[in-house]
Structure formats: C-alpha cells, structure tokens
C-alpha cells in the first residue's frame, strides 16, 4: 500500500514537472538562438533601427516596426475590450438578475471559443469592407480592423474575470452603500469597482497578454508589412505574424534570417513575462482581506 502511495505521488510530481520543464526548455531555446543572433547583429541596431528587412538583400534588423505593429493592434484591441468588457461585467453583477447572468455569461464566454482563424476572416472580409465605407483611405489590409476584432475576441477575458472579482466583493459593502442612500450607479462605481480593482486590473493584464500573443487575426487581416507607423489605417506586421511568415516560408534553418524569429520571439516573451509578473504581484499585493 505504502509503495503504491509513493508511486502515485511520484507520478503527480512528474506531471507538474512537465509544465515546468517545457517552460524552461522554451526559455533556453529562445535564449540560445537569440544569443547567436546577437553575435551577428548588434543590440543597438536591433533596438534602434526603424527598418526590419531581414529577408531582403539590403538587410536591416530593427525590431521597432514589428513592436509598433504589435502595440498598435493591441492598443486598439484593449481600447475596445476594456470599456465594453467592464461595462458588461458591471451590468451582469450589479443590474441584471442572477438568472439572466447565469444564462448570458456562458454565451459570452463562447466568444473566446471561436477559432481565431474565423475572427481573422471576419476582420478581413466583413469588418474591413464595412469600415472602408466610413473611413476614406483605409487599406484592404490595416491595423484597425484586426485590432477591433481582436478587442471583441478578448472581451470575455475581461468580463469573466472582472465579474468574478466583483462577485467576490462581500455584498455587505453593497448593502452599506445602498443603506446610505446611494444609487445603483454610485454603488457600482464608487464601492464595487474600487473594491474589485485588483481583480479587474489582473483581467486587463491577462487580456493584454492575450492580444500581444494573438497571431491568426493579425496574420490574416493586418497585412504582414513591417512598418514604423502609428497610423491604424495602414497595414502593419506584428511580431507573431513575422514569426509565422518565416517559419512557414523557405528560409533555410540555421541561418541568420531564421534566427531573427528567435530574437523577435524573445522580445515578445519578455513583454508577456513582465505582464504576468505584474499581475501576479498585483494579486498578492492588493488583494483586500475582508472580515
């Protein structure tokens, strides 16, 4: 019996090690290949050059255009998802009946279950032509349309987690506010949202991470053109899209061109790693302990 117990314990530990080891392996591979990349390209060039043309005859290795593309689409997505997602969370928690919430929340969460390739074509074939009717000069490939669609895709991340955070606030606080003569709106925005703020911020950070790493939507609808621009009407390329482009293409392995994707991947990893840590820290630091 004791022997069996030990075996089970060992298997469980092995399972948890798989995820740890995978993470470590990814970091090591990223680090090794990036290191080789930076032996040939200076970090200064990588961080300051405004051109990214590793696949052309005249090569430039500035990550900024890809970073701009990534940040631009992410910013648009967040600008859509935060106000909408939060409003929905507040509505579900403070205004709607519990029965309505029980039905609507799972439906909303299916937004996250739609394959991103579907969203990509939705952006390219539906949203872009629609926007072109209102916005003159909007390219067939642009940052705006995939950004907006990505925003819709990440709404459930924000709504679901924020709603959980709001629900975790003791209802005695709500009662206290109503007891003072506060309206629903005042109660929601002056008591409930501040009390749930750490959970809400964590949900936003998670949504940002998701948007930064999103690949398919931008690959399909943003145009794969690395440009140093903050103009959402133009086509852009994100870090993820570039990685797909190179790994799907005919770039020979073990070449400098091939290693660019590891340097780019490392950059993206650093961003999401940082965001993850901020959210972890926020959760630890700002979780309010109620009586």
């Amino acid at each position, binding site marked *: 019996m004791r022997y069996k117990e030990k075996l089970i314990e060992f298997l469980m530990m092995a399972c948890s090690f798989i995820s740890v080891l995978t993470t470590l392996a990814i970091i090591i591979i990223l680090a090794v290949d990036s290191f080789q990349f930076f032996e040939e390209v200076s970090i200064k060039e990588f961080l300051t050059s405004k051109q990214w043309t590793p696949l052309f005859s005249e090569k430039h290795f500035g990550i900024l255009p890809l970073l701009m593309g990534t940040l631009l689409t992410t910013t648009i997505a967040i600008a859509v998802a935060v106000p909408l997602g939060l409003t929905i969370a507040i509505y579900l928690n403070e205004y709607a*009946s519990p029965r309505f919430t029980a039905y609507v929340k799972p439906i909303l969460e299916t937004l996250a279950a739609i394959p991103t390739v579907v969203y990509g074509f939705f952006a390219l074939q539906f949203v872009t032509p629609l926007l072109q009717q209102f916005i003159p000069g909007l390219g067939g490939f642009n940052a705006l349309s995939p950004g907006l669609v990505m925003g819709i895709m990440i709404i459930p991340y924000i709504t679901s987690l924020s709603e959980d955070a709001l629900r975790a606030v*003791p209802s*005695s*606080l709500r*009662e*206290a*506010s*109503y*007891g*003072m*003569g*506060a*309206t629903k709106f*005042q109660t929601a925005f*002056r*008591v409930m949202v*501040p*009390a749930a703020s750490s959970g809400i911020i964590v949900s936003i950070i998670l949504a940002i991470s998701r948007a930064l790493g999103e690949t398919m939507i931008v690959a399909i609808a943003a145009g794969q053109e690395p440009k140093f621009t903050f103009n959402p009407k133009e086509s852009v390329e994100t870090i993820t899209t570039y990685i797909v482009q190179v790994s799907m293409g005919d770039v020979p392995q073990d070449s400098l061109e091939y290693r660019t994707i590891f340097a780019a991947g490392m950059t993206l990893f650093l961003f999401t790693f940082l965001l993850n840590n901020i959210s972890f820290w926020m959760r630890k630091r700002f979780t*309010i*302990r*109620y*009586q």
Partner: protein
Amino acid sequence: MYKLEAKNANLFYGDKQALKNINIGIKPNSVTAFIGPSGCGKSTLLRCFNRMNDLIENARVEGDFLMDEINIYKDINTYELRKRIGMVFQKPNPFPKTIFENVSYGLRINGMKDKKMIEERVVESLKQSALWNEVEGSLHKSALSLSGGQQQRICIARALATEPTVLLMDEPASALDPISTAKIEDLIYTLKNKFTIVIVTHNMQQAARISDKTAFFYLGELIEFEKTKKMFTNPEEEKTQNYITGRFG
C-alpha cells in the same frame, strides 16, 4: 406623535409570510429593542423602515410604514429616505477605503463638494461615534486596518455623517468582543439625545441595559411591546415570559 410607525404591516418572501399584521409606534429620541428567536421577523421589520427589503427579489410589503407621518413606501423616494435613516449592520462593513473616505461617503454621494464642510462633518461624526480620539491623525489610513469594534464605530460614524434622525441597528455588537460591545452600548446611550434608535439584538441583557422599550416578536407576530423595565420584570404574555427566562429561543 411617533417617529416611526408601522400599520397593519405584512411582508411576504414569495409565499412565506415573514411579518403578520404588525402595528407598532416608536417615539422620537428613544431606544427601542427588537428581540425574539431567529426567524421571528425582527430584522425584516427593521429593514422595512429604510426599504432595504426592496433589494430582495421576491419580497412583497403590505400595509403602511410612516416616518414623521410621511408614508415611507409612497411619499418619499428611496434614496432620500435612506439618507434620513442611517443603518448599522451585523458585521462591521467599512468600505476598503480610508477612514476619511468611509465617513465622507454619504456626503459625497449627496453631491457635497465643499472640502471644508465635508471635513467638519467627518470630524463631528467621528466625535459623535466616540472614535475621534482613537483615529485622530490617522484619518487617511485604511479603515480595514482598525479593530472590529473600531470598524463598527466607523460604520456608525458613516451613518451619522448625513445627519439622519433615525438609526437602525441590526445586531450591531453580535460580532464584537465584550469590551467593544460595551463601547457600542455606551455610544447608543449618548446618541439617544439626538436620534431615534431601533436596535435588533439577540442579547437580552443588552436589550435590558440600553433600551427604553422592547418589542418581542415570535414567528412574524409582535407578541408584546412594552417599557423595557416592565417587560423584563413582569411581562403580560406567557410567551414573552418563556423567552426572556430562556425557556426557548
């Protein structure tokens, strides 16, 4: 003239009747204790006076509730009513904000902008709730850093800030230690001069110590409503006698 009054009041939670034909009148500047076993309707009746039962989805109220002879359910809007009737709850429930923000909450949601006036009201309320000496100088600390008893007095100060005339207290000391409880009781005694206080309590000694009149409820009915002294020495009803001597409940 009564400060608070219920006439032929009934309350239903769905099909279940929680209050049965209650008639009660509460005089101004007095302390009235509601006692009775759990589920007898004492908290429910208390919450009728500031319409907190409105928040419960299937609660339905019949009869008339009056404050200063104004019909609470017909002639005044709920927000205005709740500003005039302060409430203190069973568990201390300060907002996760600073002491100052907690006490000034009612003023701010009322649209008071004048910083000086807000400050004056906060200090005044903290003094009224006998907390000023303990928190002077730390008004911008989180209210959650205080002890349970202090938190409850913050909640009282918060309720007093909007200058209500009635204070409803739903077992305000049941979650507190004996020393904090004694402080709250002293406080209730001094607040009587300015406010009409109704307190729900499970603690009969507490009711005997602090109240002028006591109402005994049983299964949704008001069994007896008498001067506290008489109630605890010579009650009219046998049920009251049995309850206060601890034979049931």
